[in-house]
């Protein structure tokens, strides 16, 4: 079943026991953060949380942790909530190749049921909160920023959707943080070189799959809307913004329309980013709002970001793995799976059949030069094709028994890094570490000692028997299963 919008997804989460409505009174700080952190500490099964009784914001609704567990992610894909992670990966990888998905233009969209063009005050319109105690202000941490290319404004595929952190700086102004690798920077460079403001639309509570594709490494001239359509199976409905020509998600809960002021930098930050550390104060861009539109009874969706594992990791995880997986397999079909879940791909584990001596290390070098791998893939670990890179126990076994430290560990100096990585010094510079934990192949030193014991046949039958016996026992003694 494909969800039309954010609300249909919330309804399905609730039906599946994956959404909690918290109606006890809470303070904006620190209570919202406490609930979000607690939910994030359940990465496999944690629920979405809707708050509707925030002090000072009576009657307003806030949604947290919507993508915050693999159970919720599976439901978003239309799969059972207990689907194993490895199967979720292969499902996303399979749907990736369905690009382009359907995009449908509509008029009189729900996101414009209410239109405000004067007296905008975000602190009153949205139940904002400080995500972390020393953040520089209230942040929009799950907002999709839509923008177009000033040099090619009619090219729909160059409409960029990105999840950038946004610091509310006054009633109707926002500090926008971008790093050099972001596609929005390409468009900003064009606009600033002409001293023109760049129109943007900041969308909150969009289709859950659109939020995923907006933080996925996609080529500049590929459409996040079309990827969302392909991955979700739901046509992505869009409509023209009110104050500019941009295409916005028709069912978004809120759309904040405005412009980025050219050739101006303002202080922004700090913000406790997805690496779990506060980024430093930076000189970034300023957005001036012109209009806010929203649905009736809108729900403000935001994301807790902090010490991993958080919703940020689940939201970005699989769609970070899949593009690199396909890029590797273009020339290296021996690659079986890619796990780039750790902090948006700072650590990557690749499962590959070692075609010949040194092949696995070549895969690492190819990964390090993919568009996303260039700034991100810092620690690259290779394991055999029959090792599940999503299974921590198997990966550690491979590390324990296949790494020859004097031959299988390589450090490459002076490569790009990511400014949010606290170990990137100076910010934006790093190195790369390759650990080859694959079984050596000819003409490397092959040994019969590497042969592992034979797999045991008919395991499913025995697993089922033991599981049922354990369940019966638990019921007999009155314990919870």
């Amino acid at each position: 079943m494909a969800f039309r919008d954010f609300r249909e997804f919330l309804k399905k989460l609730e039906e599946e026991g994956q959404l909690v409505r918290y109606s006890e009174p809470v303070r904006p700080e620190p209570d919202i953060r406490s609930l979000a952190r607690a939910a994030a500490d359940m990465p496999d099964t944690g629920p979405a949380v809707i708050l509707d009784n925030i002090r000072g914001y009576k009657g307003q609704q806030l949604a947290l942790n919507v993508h915050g567990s693999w159970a919720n992610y599976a439901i978003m894909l239309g799969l059972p909530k207990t689907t194993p992670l490895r199967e979720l990966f292969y499902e996303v990888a399979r749907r990736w190749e369905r690009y382009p998905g359907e995009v449908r233009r509509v008029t009189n969209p729900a996101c414009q049921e209410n239109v405000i063009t004067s007296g905008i005050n975000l602190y009153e319109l949205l139940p904002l909160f400080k995500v972390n105690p020393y953040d520089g202000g209230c942040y929009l941490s799950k907002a999709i920023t839509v923008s177009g290319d000033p040099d090619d404004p009619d090219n729909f595929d160059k409409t960029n959707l990105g999840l950038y952190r946004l610091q509310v700086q006054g009633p109707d102004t926002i500090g926008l943080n971008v790093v050099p690798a972001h596609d929005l920077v390409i468009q900003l460079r064009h606009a600033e070189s002409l001293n023109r403001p760049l129109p943007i639309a900041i969308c909150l509570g969009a289709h859950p799959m659109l939020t995923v594709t907006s933080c996925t490494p996609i080529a500049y001239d590929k459409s996040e809307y079309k990827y969302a359509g392909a991955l979700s199976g739901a046509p992505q409905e869009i409509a023209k913004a009110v104050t500019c020509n941009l295409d916005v998600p028709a069912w978004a809960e809120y759309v904040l329309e405005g412009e980025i002021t050219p050739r101006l930098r303002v202080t922004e930050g700090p913000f406790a980013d997805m690496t779990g550390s506060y980024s430093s104060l930076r000189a970034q861009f300023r957005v001036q709002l012109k209009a806010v539109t929203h649905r009736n009874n809108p729900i403000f969706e935001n994301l807790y970001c902090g010490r991993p594992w958080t919703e940020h990791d689940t939201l970005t995880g699989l769609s970070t793995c899949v593009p690199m997986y396909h890029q590797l397999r273009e020339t290296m079909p021996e690659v079986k799976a890619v796990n780039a879940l750790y902090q948006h791909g700072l650590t990557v584990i690749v499962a590959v059949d070692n075609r010949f001596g040194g092949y696995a290390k070549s895969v690492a070098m190819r990964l390090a030069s993919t568009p996303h791998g260039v700034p991100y893939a810092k620690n690259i670990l290779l394991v055999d094709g029959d090792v599940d890179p999503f299974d921590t126990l198997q990966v550690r076994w491979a590390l324990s028994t296949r790494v020859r430290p004097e031959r299988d560990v390589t450090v490459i100096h002076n490569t790009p890094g990511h400014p949010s990585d606290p170990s990137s010094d100076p910010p934006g510079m790093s190195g790369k570490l390759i650990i080859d934990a694959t079984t050596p192949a000819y003409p490397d030193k092959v040994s019969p000692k590497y042969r592992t014991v034979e797999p045991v046949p008919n395991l499913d039958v025995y697993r089922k028997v033991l599981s049922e016996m354990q369940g019966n026992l638990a019921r007999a003694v009155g314990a919870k299963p």
Partner: protein
Amino acid sequence: MQCVRCLRESASVVAKAPDGSGAWEMIYCKTCNFSWRTSDEEQFINPAERDKSFQLEGATLEKVQILIPIPPLRK
């Protein structure tokens, strides 16, 4: 009023609790762009109690790192 982070006299109230409860006010500093809610925990909004490494007293904001340089103007 004084900003609790940079200590300059450039902060002002920008919002009150929209439900009319008077539960809090939001204050914003136009020099360093910091904002805080009056109902937040004392240790984070009292200059004497805040972690000194997050303070900007006397800081020269012009020296803050620009990640994206301003490009030359096209002719």
